[in-house]
């Protein structure tokens, strides 16, 4: 197209007033360009000084993922730590054997609950009806029990036995996974013939609590078992123990009929 260009005309044109946009006009346009670039993040890997954004974001995501994984790993109960013999025995006992029974008397005198720093162990047991939420519920109830040091219905254990109590709670949690069927059967039996026995406001199910007491008894920690049994009676005054369970939690053999 150079053949169309007339050198004289081009020279005349170049000699016209050298117009240029003002600095203010330049600023307005460049500001608009920067604002538009900032509004819409680049869809491709940025070059130059923006490249470090991606490295930082990747590192942050990796750290977060590792932290979440470790957290979940710590919170997961160890299934091999549970006593398989006890679990099986418990399952056999609970399956269809929870019957309405007269309430036994408290085996020992109640002890004062004057140690608010120890959380009530019952609050840590998972809900057998929803085993998937056991970890979350445990954390939530743990927080709640920390905020409320003493339960209005049950005394808290002494701090000297806190470690043993935690171990018992852990055992009860593992065992509770296998109690689902038995508890449902017990609930059905209770609702059919017996008055309502389980207060809905109490976080721990009575079956789980009794299992914990039975575990304490089987380990020879009778004082703890007695204390827990007293607390259980306060929380569930109308709960009817089966003969087998009463033997386990009270430690006294059932007389043969």
């Amino acid at each position, binding site marked *: *197209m150079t053949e*169309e*260009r*007339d050198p*004289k*005309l*081009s020279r*005349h*044109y170049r*000699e*016209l*007033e*050298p*117009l*240029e*946009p*003002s600095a203010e*006009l*330049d600023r*307005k*346009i*460049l500001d*608009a*360009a*920067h604002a*538009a*670039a*900032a509004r*819409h*993040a*680049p*869809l*491709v890997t*940025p*070059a*130059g000084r*923006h490249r470090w954004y991606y490295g930082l974001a990747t590192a942050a995501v990796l750290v977060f993922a590792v932290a979440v994984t470790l957290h979940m790993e710590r919170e997961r109960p160890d299934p091999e730590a549970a006593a398989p013999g006890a679990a099986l025995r418990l399952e056999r006992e609970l399956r269809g054997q929870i019957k309405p029974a007269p309430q036994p008397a408290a085996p020992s005198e109640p002890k004062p609950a004057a140690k608010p720093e120890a959380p009530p162990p019952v609050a840590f047991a998972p809900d057998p009806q929803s085993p998937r939420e056991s970890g979350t519920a445990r954390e939530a109830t743990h927080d709640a029990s920390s905020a409320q040091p003493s339960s209005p219905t049950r005394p808290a254990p002494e701090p000297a036995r806190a470690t043993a109590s935690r171990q018992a709670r852990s055992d009860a949690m593992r065992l509770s996974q296998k109690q689902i069927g038995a508890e449902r059967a017990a609930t059905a039996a209770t609702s059919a013939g017996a008055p309502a026995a389980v207060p809905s406001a109490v976080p721990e199910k009575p079956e789980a609590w009794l299992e914990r007491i039975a575990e304490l008894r089987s380990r020879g920690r009778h004082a703890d078992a007695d204390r827990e049994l007293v607390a259980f009676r306060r929380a569930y005054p109308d709960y009817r123990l089966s003969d087998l369970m009463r033997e386990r939690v009270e430690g006294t053999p059932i007389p043969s009929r």
Partner: protein
Amino acid sequence: MEAPDEQLMLAYRDGDAAAFEKLYARHRARLYRFVLRSVKSRAIGEDLFQEIWLRVIEARGRYTPQARFTTWLYTIAHNHLVDHWRKRGLTLVALEGDETQGTSPDPAEQAQARQSLERFAAALQALPPLQREAFLLHEEGELSVAEIAVATGTNEEAAKSRLRYATAKLKAAMGDD
């Protein structure tokens, strides 16, 4: 070696605002003159100039380097000028030999002009809009006939004809023919 316009525009499309600054620095003055010499009011020309660049910014996501960036830029400028002329009730029917859209320079007045530049400027303003646009695209944008055709949405023959008429009238106004 400086990056070509197309590469800069792609970089800006991908979020690199610094690329736009370079691109703007290269084309600001030429486009500014093109716009201001296409209209008769400096204020209107500045508004149009800013609006053209805003259109470039808005259209960055659709930019693909199918042609030279300059052609793309002046296509946007042409379309915006057409919109401007239409709003003002001006029709763009000036093709070859159309003398009705512009006022032919009065030879007597031109002869009385003291400076050739004033004469040239008057002749340029007197050109029909499409012929003036073709000339400005050629001079300011350094577009070829084919690129002028692309930028103005016409065929090469029409673009070539507009440019030829514009050149002839300007030469006649300057007494160069």
